[in-house]
């Protein structure tokens, strides 16, 4: 079946602009995660959605970052007034359930470059 898809694969934007990154999880997966990988760093947890529960936004680095998940499926990560330090690969993952042992399946990521 189809895996996790993300769009766009690459995004170059000017500092100060807003960007939207999209994630299509695997059908039937109730949990969805966003991570960020900056250059030379590991994956950094950003936000977690599980079913209809309130999302865990504890990893969002600033209030310029927000995310939503519509209809329990597609998710959009929005970064407002982008800064150069926002340049990173943004990875989305989904899992069948939201437990620590439920395998997370990752999308290919969106490489964001802020100039």
């Amino acid at each position: 079946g189809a895996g996790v898809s993300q769009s766009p694969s690459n995004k170059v934007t000017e500092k100060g602009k807003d960007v939207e990154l999209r994630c299509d999880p695997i059908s039937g997966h109730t949990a969805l995660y966003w991570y960020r990988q900056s250059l030379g760093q590991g994956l950094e947890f950003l936000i977690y959605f599980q079913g209809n529960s309130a999302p865990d936004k504890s990893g969002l680095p600033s209030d310029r970052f927000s995310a939503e998940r519509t209809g329990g499926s597609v998710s959009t990560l929005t970064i407002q007034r982008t800064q150069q330090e926002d340049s990173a690969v943004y990875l989305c993952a989904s899992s069948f359930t939201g437990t620590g042992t439920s395998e997370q399946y990752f999308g290919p990521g969106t490489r964001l470059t802020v100039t």
Partner: protein
Amino acid sequence: DQQVKQNSPSLSVQEGRISILNCDYTNSMFDYFLWYKKYPAEGPTFLISISSIKDKNEDGRFTVFLNKSAKHLSLHIVPSQPGDSAVYFCAASARFFRSNYKLTFGKGTLLTVNP
């Protein structure tokens, strides 16, 4: 404060030999550990995991060892193949915490297997 550390950014081995990738953690609440493999321009894919009640888990050519007292785990690949060349991420979670879905990742180790 890095809770999961992969101190070797890179490792190079000959085809057919053993690859040993190391990972250390500081958070004693972590009780579930995973290894992910990542090829360029792709998302990480799950490789193998181990629960803290075990000290070894084997899957084909891949074996993960866990030393809880030393807060150390290692991934052994035997025999190494050129197709194993990728970045390997160590990750950990605390299953009995409310936020057990959160994976904490190391920075990764780039493994190169030379033919």
